[in-house]
């Protein structure tokens, strides 16, 4: 369970964390992002993330902690942007009749981001096998033939991918679908 201290104490700690560290973190962000707006947003996101975790009373070394969270937020930002770009490219190529509704597009995009994060850092072969199965709907034997590997390997890859997904999935992943 997340640590939950007295909300008032949390709030005060959060306040001092913000006033002591916001300025340098914003400068740090600006060096890593192309524009000032993104830097401001992501600095804000970093504090929001820490606030949501309700752990501000447990931070020994705020600077290191903030940097760790901020790095995660930046990498999430870039992932999101690259997915959005690839997604919009694909969408633009669809015939108009096949275009999903705005609302559906947003759901697809969010789900894509979540899946992409789950598959992050999997070896290329494992990821390929997994996508052939999940997205293309191919049977294990077909995947083995297509990739030129044994059926046993396909199954091993699939299990590895499933396990990584299950381990990384947050409680709200795909909830409500």
């Amino acid at each position, binding site marked *: 369970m997340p640590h939950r201290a007295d909300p008032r104490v949390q709030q005060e700690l959060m306040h001092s964390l913000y006033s002591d560290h916001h300025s340098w973190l914003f400068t740090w962000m600006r060096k890593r992002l192309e524009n000032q707006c993104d830097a401001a947003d992501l600095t804000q996101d970093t504090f929001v993330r820490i606030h949501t975790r309700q752990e501000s009373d447990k931070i020994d070394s705020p600077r290191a902690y903030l940097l760790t969270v901020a790095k995660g937020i930046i990498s999430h930002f870039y992932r999101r942007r690259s997915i959005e770009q690839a997604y919009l490219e*694909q969408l633009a190529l669809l015939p*108009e009749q096949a275009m999903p509704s705005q609302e559906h597009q947003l759901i697809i995009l969010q789900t*894509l981001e979540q899946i992409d994060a789950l598959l992050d850092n999997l070896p*290329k072969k494992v990821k390929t096998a997994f996508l052939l199965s999940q997205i293309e*709907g191919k049977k294990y034997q077909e995947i083995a033939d297509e990739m030129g590997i044994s059926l046993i390997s396909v199954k091993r890859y699939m299990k590895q991918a499933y396990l990584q997904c299950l381990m990384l999935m947050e409680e709200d992943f795909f909830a409500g679908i």
Partner: protein
Amino acid sequence: MPESNQKIPLRALEEAAEWLLKLQDAPLSNLEQQTLLDWQQANTDNQAAWEKAQRLMHGMAQMPKDIAGPVLNRADDEGRRLAIGKLALLLAAGPTIWGGSKLVESQQWSADYRTTKGGFSSVTLPDGSTVKLNTATAFDIQFNPTHRLLTLREGEIEIVTAPVNSKQFGPFLVSTQEGELMPLGTRFTVRQHQEMTHLVVIEGRVKATPKQATQRQNNIIEAGQEVSFSRYQLHTRKALRPESTAWLQRMLAVHNMPLSTFINEVSRYRHGLLRVSPKLAELPISGSFPTTNTDTILTMLSHTYPLTVSRHLGGYWVTLEAS
């Protein structure tokens, strides 16, 4: 947030991954289903792990194939992404580029269209014909100067052929596992059953040719008729029933259909397993049901008929029993 940060032990997650692996490959036998159920109910860790596994499967099933593939593969396979992109561009460009381009005329090409379970979509082909796809449906198209070929891999489609000069495009052909259909200016639906094709002609006429026809038959099916055919022969044609085209309105309409058959129909639109107690198999079902929400169908059944719906594995495995 419910049960947030609940730590599920690695052991339970590994076992859940094993089950996913098994489920994905082939339908479970009755014994395996029971084993899965026992495993899931053995303790709360297993339950939580399985709940996660189900969410994963549902999330994956949500992904439209043509978009998710290129997007998720984007970084490590640029070449493939470009190739798919070009193909889609040709599709999007439609008849204009198609009619004029020598480059396109000189080569064959094909594309996949697919819906997942519960899905429904509509596409326009390069010649202007439109195709509606019912749940769990896949077809390829191959357009070249001599013909326009649509190969139905699985599921159910409605085709409205465009009134085009067939000299420009060549004849339109639909191929199924059992044979070939040639529409003669028309609107019709085709469903691929197991070892059987079902054709419903709404407007115009369609010539249906089983792959290994053993006898000469009149094989022109007229508007207002429907017919099933195997690889060997056409069966007796019948007058078009309104139920046959209800899926176009995203409804499942039935008249005195045995419950076991009805549940097979519902399964086309639903993930997971639906089981009917043998006692209820012959129960005649009538009515119209929304295919957009199979849970609603199950609820409607339990309100109208003397049966109880029990959900296990968080709705993944549903049984219908006499109440």
